[in-house]
């Protein structure tokens, strides 16, 4: 397979591959299909946004990729290996209640670092406290943090274990719009400095166009991949430029189709 002509993206290894993935749940003795025939290759270091109607199975898809669920059809492989359960090499960030309320900021960031020596752990915690700008809050409990700070903390705890892939399930969905805008900038900054693969579920079109290398549009249930849209605008993206608005309108149109499909 040759690199797509005319694309400026460098050719990168495939990190995550989904082949003919299908998922069905048993409900009242009947099998309900949630996902059908999902095929997607995600490159190493790529930023993917998943959008689609609510309840279409975006979170289910993320749970499959995270190893929390096993697909009823097809396979999900990471680095050519079939996923067998959750793994610290890929961390899921939740929309709400993701941080442990009984641990301080430090305790949360250090949660996955039990195997490190004390000094290494200390260093890692300090590094990520700085990265998500929570200096001065090291000994604060989450209940005393704002929603945005809690989500930053959750991202820091995820990054601290040095994962290859970060799955984010509408991580800014419960935040107010200004905090969201700031958080997107922070996430891009972190992504650019840390070079992780990110798969980000959202139902916010602006969020998708602002963040993603590619936007994957899912159809209503049972969800299939309706469209894959490449956003070829370099970061930082000017959210009032003509090119940006063009992509945004394009995506809206395609989502509109997906919602009525």
């Amino acid at each position, binding site marked *: 397979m040759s690199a797509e002509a005319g694309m400026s993206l460098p050719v990168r290894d495939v990190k995550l591959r989904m082949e003919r993935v299908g998922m069905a749940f048993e409900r009242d003795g009947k099998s309900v299909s949630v996902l059908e025939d999902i095929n997607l290759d995600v490159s190493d270091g790529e930023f993917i946004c998943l959008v689609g109607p609510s309840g279409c199975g975006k979170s289910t898809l993320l749970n499959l990729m995270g190893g929390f669920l096993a697909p009823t059809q097809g396979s999900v492989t990471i680095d050519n290996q079939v996923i067998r359960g959750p793994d610290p090499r890929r961390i899921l960030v939740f929309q709400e209640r993701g941080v442990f309320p009984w641990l301080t900021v430090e305790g949360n960031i250090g949660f996955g670092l039990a195997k490190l020596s004390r000094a290494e752990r200390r260093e890692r915690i300090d590094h990520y406290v700085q990265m998500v700008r929570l200096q001065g809050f090291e000994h604060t*409990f989450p209940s005393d943090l704002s929603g945005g700070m809690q989500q930053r903390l959750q991202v820091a705890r995820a990054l601290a274990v040095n994962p290859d892939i970060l799955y984010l399930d509408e991580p800014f969905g419960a935040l107010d719009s200004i905090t969201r805008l700031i958080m997107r900038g922070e996430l891009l900054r972190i992504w650019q400095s840390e070079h992780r693969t990110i798969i980000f579920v959202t139902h916010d079109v602006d969020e998708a166009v602002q963040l993603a290398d590619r936007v994957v549009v899912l159809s209503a249930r049972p969800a299939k991949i309706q469209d894959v849209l490449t956003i070829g605008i370099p970061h930082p993206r000017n959210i009032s430029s003509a090119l940006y608005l063009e992509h945004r309108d394009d995506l809206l149109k395609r989502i509109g189709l997906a919602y009525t499909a």
Partner: protein
Amino acid sequence: MRLLVRLRPFAFIAVLLVIWQVAVKRHPAQLLPGPLGVVRGIGDLLQHGLLLKYVVASLFRVTWGFLLAAVIAIPLGLTIGWYRRSEMALSPLVQIFRPISPLAWIPIAILWFGVGDLAAIFLIFVGCFFPLMLTAMSAVHNIPAVYVNVGRNFGLSAANLVYRVLYPAVVPQLIIGSRITLGIAWLVVVAAEMIAVNSGLGFLIIDARNAGNRYDLVIAGMIIIGTIGLLLDLGMRSLERVKSFRWGYSED
């Protein structure tokens, strides 16, 4: 101003005591001793060294009965709550035993353990067992799935998942349940001591009546029971302010 607000309940109690004393003076029928009589009664008990002895005896029984129940019922309840199937199997049995007053066990307690500390401890154990087990079961049910998923995501072993996620997640609810249960234990010990032993605050009350209608001592015993119950509750409440538990209680 704050001090005044804090003193208000004590002022109210003082007013009631005065009314009580005046009423007893006006109608010296033998319905109730006055507060001064009660204070003299407490003085008598102190003088004979009975007060401390009885308080210690009652607390001893409550401590052992409660601790034994906690050590068995809490792990059991957590385990049953975690495995929903075992809960479905055991639920009818629990539902039958739960509404039986611990006092209904008094004859059995005496049959098995004779008159003495063991019988009283057993009764408190029975009284604490079901509330603690049910608390533990519901605490497990209320753990948000997110916490468990995060624990699994970070690669915790089963033992570590219990120790680092499940245990801290249930502690605040266990503290509330323990507080309520300790209150129950304190109710049960008084009743148990009236029948199953020859010491303690419950025995004091029934003995004061039987041995000479010393109602001043009856009331004295009641007041001491109330005061100690309050102190026990305050002690348990102070646990709710520990920083790593505090998240479990809404702060309004």
